[in-house]
Structures are given as structure tokens and as C-alpha cells.
């Protein structure tokens, strides 16, 4: 029997702007609602502050990096401290393709922000299916 590993969804922390908030909320929606049985996550700083278990995360799980902006902290951190991610999403770029403005508040998403987060979560979920060959 071929048991596929769960996919690690790793969001940037993105405290500096609402793009980071979208990254985190979309990631949580994937974990809680869209693909709860096939995904896991890890706090990004644990790659640096953590122990061997954390450093081995991307070696055990194919990962998808979810970055708010072009600084690509999640993608770079996964690659530097564990293993190259299998896929990567940049929220700023995707919103641009969709013609959606970044939310005004970084603390609390309004209805439009939640809708954008759900659309992002669906995008990430599709990528996860691709990674798992489903």
C-alpha cells in the first residue's frame, strides 16, 4: 500500500501587513476546512529556534510555502533550514492576478478579506492535490 505523506503548509508570519494576515488565514482554512486530513503545519520561526524534529519537517513532508509578499520568507526559510519546498504561493502576486486589493486591516479581515482568504485557500488546496498526485 502506498501511503502518501501529509503536505506541510507553511505560512510566513507576515506581521507587517495584511498580506501576511491573508497568508495565515488561508493556511489555517486549508488545515481546518479544505484539506484537514492531508495537511500539517509548523510555525516558521521553529525552523531556526527549533530542534532536529523541526529541521526535519520538510524532509518528512513535501511542503508548500505561503508567502504574503515578495520577500518570500517562508519559501527561503524552508529551503535554508530544511529542504526545498514542493510548491510556493505568493499572495501579493495572486491578488494582483485576480485584481483584488490587499485588505485594509492586518488585525481583522472584513467580509471581502475573508472571501479572498477562502479563494486563496482553494488555490492552495488545488496545489496540494497536485503535490499528492490527486
Amino acid at each position: 500500500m502506498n501511503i502518501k505523506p501529509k503536505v506541510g503548509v507553511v505560512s510566513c508570519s507576515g506581521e507587517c501587513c495584511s498580506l501576511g494576515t491573508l497568508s495565515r488565514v488561508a493556511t489555517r482554512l486549508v488545515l481546518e476546512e479544505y484539506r484537514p486530513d492531508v495537511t500539517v503545519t509548523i510555525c516558521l520561526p521553529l525552523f531556526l529556534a527549533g530542534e532536529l524534529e523541526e529541521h526535519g519537517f520538510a524532509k518528512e513532508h513535501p511542503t508548500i510555502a505561503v508567502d504574503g509578499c515578495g520577500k518570500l520568507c517562508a519559501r527561503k526559510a524552508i529551503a535554508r533550514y530544511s529542504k526545498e519546498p514542493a510548491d510556493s504561493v505568493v499572495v501579493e502576486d495572486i491578488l494582483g492576478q485576480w485584481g483584488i486589493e490587499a485588505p485594509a486591516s492586518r488585525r481583522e479581515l472584513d467580509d471581502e478579506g475573508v472571501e479572498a482568504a477562502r479563494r486563496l485557500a482553494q488555490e492552495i488546496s488545488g496545489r496540494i492535490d497536485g503535490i499528492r498526485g490527486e
Partner: protein
Amino acid sequence: MGKPVLVVPCSGVGKAFGSIGRDATFRVVDELRKGKADTLCLSLLVMGDEEARDRVASSKCIAVDGCPLECAGKNIVRSGGSIAAHFWVMELLKENRGLKTGEVTFLDENGVKLSKLLAERIARKVDELAEEDR
């Protein structure tokens, strides 16, 4: 007005602790002490971003950690900064056992109460630290 106090929350995405700490941080820097306090992306510190390291090294820093792994505090110190004050969301939960919460993505009523409590404490500490510079 002096240099803003830097409030650095952990980027906790796995449990409610991280969400509460981050929400409280945004309340402080965007509302309660706007201009007197600021924050930055912890991911940038993890990646060794020079500008972020300079800000940490030259500012009074408040660490807001969700769990005992202390990613915020550890990364401040590793970036050449010193911790002027340290808050732990788990301690707040122990003090307020009646306010049980488990929601991570969108804080529930108790999560919001805890965030407000924590934000008030952080704001008072920002005032104390700012007063030292006068």
C-alpha cells in the same frame, strides 16, 4: 516622540496562543499606542534580514510568545537585540482559566477578551519603556 518600542509576537499558527499574542500586538501598535509602538515580521528576523536586525538591535523590544518554545524572545536575542519585557500568552490563560478558547483562525469571544487583556498590559509596558527615554 522617541523611537517606537518594538513589539514582536511569535508567529504561532498552530494554536490559539499565537493568534491571541498577534492580535494583542496589532491592537497595541495600530490602535492603543499607535506611533509609540511598532512591530515587524518575525520571519524577517528568522531569515537574518539586515534592516530587521538593525531595528531590533537599536530598539527597546517587547517579546510576546504564545508557547514555551519562545520563538519571539529567542529570535530577538539571536538578532542582537535585548528583551525589555516578555509576555507569555500561556501565563495569561493560567490567570484567566474561565476564558477557555481554542479557535485559531478567527478568535472567538474569549479569545478577543484575552487579546484585549494582553494588549492593555503590553500598552502599559510600552508607556513605562517610553517614559524611561524622557
